[in-house]
């Protein structure tokens, strides 16, 4: 029988003991990372693979002796995307000594911001949460660590400008889920529209995006040159299907990061040519993924189904832990044990040009920039895999940082 998240979760719980049980990890105080995520509600399209990648990477670290002899423990709990459950799980994890938390949930991570700032626990919010948390001086313990949705929109717009015949005079449709996440790219795209002289029109569809036909009838009549789709989960599949049905060619569809192999499988041949923003390289050929296959999965220590290894969301999970472990390594080397949230924060801020052996763009953090530079690339579904069509790039960060500054100022003012 296929392993499911349930078996994955059971395996996850065993991670509590895994670090200490490994013979090749000396008996030092463990470093504890709390992976308190939504396994049962809204983010389920992503959580299994993402969390599996995180746990497998930590198992790889432990199999290699841990962090200077400190095993890394994953505290895994389900929050069902509910802030109150997330806070409860956070309090328990903090009591257990967690120095880092990853909720993989915008509502939960937003609810926890003030607590982690007060408790001095590092919260990573890769590809979710609030974009203004990139402002390190306002959010010293929060690390978006990958491109915000503002940066993603900028990269997709730049791709249209440089590779698809330019932005000037074009009609760009943004078809998005009707939520703060869906509307997030609008201000950046509006600024770019003014700068480059293209027409932007946003089309919202109601959450969770299961029925979008009326929206796409309107999009078709707008006759856009390019369409950006901004949703997640099954709503993304519906968006692509409705676009195709309305005569929009796959080559003219560009997606936010949330479009993956499972979506392509569902859409079949109609998906070929669709492009997406990519924060982390997918696939198994990368050195770190090969190492996981050889040193973790091949020994029966994998935390979930082997077929997930190398998928887009799995690799994003690996990348998050690669960065976190690198931060912990730097912190332990510089400030010594025991690792605290504040030491870990300073470890993050020392990371420079770290790409986990080609798994992701070179990320650098500072006390000011917790986004890591806002890098990414565009990839295209070729019928069997996501193939990059650009190099890693970071663009229009002046516009992105205007948004970050504006929203961070709002947070400081209590808005």
């Amino acid at each position, binding site marked *: 029988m296929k392993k499911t998240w349930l078996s994955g979760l059971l395996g996850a719980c065993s991670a509590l003991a895994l670090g200490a049980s490994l013979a090749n990890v000396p008996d030092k105080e463990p470093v504890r990372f709390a992976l308190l995520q939504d396994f049962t509600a809204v983010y*389920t399209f992503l959580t299994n693979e993402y969390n599996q990648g995180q746990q497998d990477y930590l198992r790889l670290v432990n199999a290699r002796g841990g962090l200077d002899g400190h095993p890394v423990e994953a505290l895994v709990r389900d929050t069902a995307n509910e802030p109150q459950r997330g806070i409860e799980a956070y309090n328990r994890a903090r009591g257990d000594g967690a120095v880092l938390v990853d909720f993989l949930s915008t509502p939960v991570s937003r609810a926890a911001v003030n607590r982690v700032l007060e408790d001095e626990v590092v919260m990573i919010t890769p590809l979710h949460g609030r974009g203004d948390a990139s402002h390190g001086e306002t959010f010293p313990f929060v690390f978006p660590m990958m491109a915000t949705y503002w940066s993603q929109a900028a990269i997709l717009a730049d791709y249209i400008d440089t590779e698809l015949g330019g932005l000037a005079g074009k009609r760009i449709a943004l078809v998005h889920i009707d939520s703060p996440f869906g509307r997030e790219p609008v201000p950046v795209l509006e600024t770019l529209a003014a700068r480059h002289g293209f027409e932007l029109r946003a089309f919202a569809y*109601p959450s969770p995006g*299961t029925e979008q036909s*009326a929206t796409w009838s309107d999009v078709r*009549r707008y006759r856009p040159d390019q369409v950006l789709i901004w949703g997640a989960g*099954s709503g993304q599949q519906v968006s692509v299907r409705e676009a195709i*049905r309305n005569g929009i060619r796959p080559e003219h569809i560009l997606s936010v990061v949330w479009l993956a192999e499972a979506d392509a499988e569902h859409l079949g041949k109609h998906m070929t040519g669709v492009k997406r923003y990519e924060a982390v390289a997918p696939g198994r050929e990368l050195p770190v993924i090969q190492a996981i296959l050889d040193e973790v999965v091949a020994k029966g220590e994998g935390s979930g189904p082997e077929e997930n290894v190398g998928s887009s969301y799995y690799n994003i999970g690996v990348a998050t832990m690669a960065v976190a472990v690198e931060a912990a390594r730097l912190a332990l080397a510089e400030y010594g044990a025991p690792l605290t949230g504040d030491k870990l924060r300073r470890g993050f801020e020392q990371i420079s040009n770290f790409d986990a052996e080609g798994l992701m763009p070179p990320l650098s953090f500072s006390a000011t920039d917790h986004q890591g530079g806002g890098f990414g690339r565009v990839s295209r579904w070729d019928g069997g895999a996501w193939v990059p069509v650009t190099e890693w790039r970071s663009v229009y960060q002046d516009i992105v940082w205007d948004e970050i500054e504006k929203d961070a100022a709002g947070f400081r003012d209590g808005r």
Partner: protein
Amino acid sequence: MDIAFLIELTINGALTGLMYGLVALGIVLIYKSSGVPNLAQGAMVMIAAYLVWMVAGWLGAPVVVALLVAVLGMFLFGMLTERVLLRRMVGQPIIMVVMLTLGLESLLRGLGPGLLGAAPKSLDLGIDMMPIIVGDVFINREYLIGGAIGALMIGLALFFFRTRLGTKLLAVSDDHVSSWSVGISVERAVAVSWGLAGVAAVAAGVMWGSVQGVDWSLTTLLFPAVAVVILGGLDSIHGVLVAGLVVGILGSVVPGYVDPLVGGGTRDVVTSLIILLTILFRPHGIFGREEIERV
């Protein structure tokens, strides 16, 4: 005014509404026989879709076989739910029964993705993705087939209530005590209605699963379905047809024109307004019986 746009919104909305009607039909079938508003119908739709996916997508059986297995499975599931859960609630306040169905919804919503994997599953019925194009009007083939199945299922339900078993169900819906007194097994009749709601869930789950994939979000179909049953009347099959069309068309046409002006989000507002205004001005719905006690 772009007439083709209006026609397209109306047709696709009507077809979508008939597909909502498939979910609503299950709620009405149960309410007619037992007076229980089943808030777990959305989750039953999801479970039915998972069942079809398991047999067709996972085990590789033909879709027809998967459908037969799912129809049988969900019929038994419905009857079992009545036998194990609902029958124990006889004599309890109706609010507790409603809470029970809410608990069942929550359980099923976690159980399906939990046991079968939470990533959206593909349910390919082989329906061509390209629309039927008439002039400048694009008609979605999946909605067309789904709408036709919706209309067919509603027609079959109407026919069913003219059969001997259906007449018994009608008697049960009128008065449990009188039905008992003339020898009708009320428990069995109610169990059959739950079983039939399970069958309706298969039709809804397959068509919506084909449109959007199979995952937890199928449970959200409960919201428009509730609007349909409230507008049409909780105990009216005719109401499912008419209200399904109204909810579907308004939910398509109004957002089609208003969303661009206000930035989106009006379809759920339309659905909510339908529920609120119906309860305020015609609490029994268009076709419902006035003596129905509201919860």
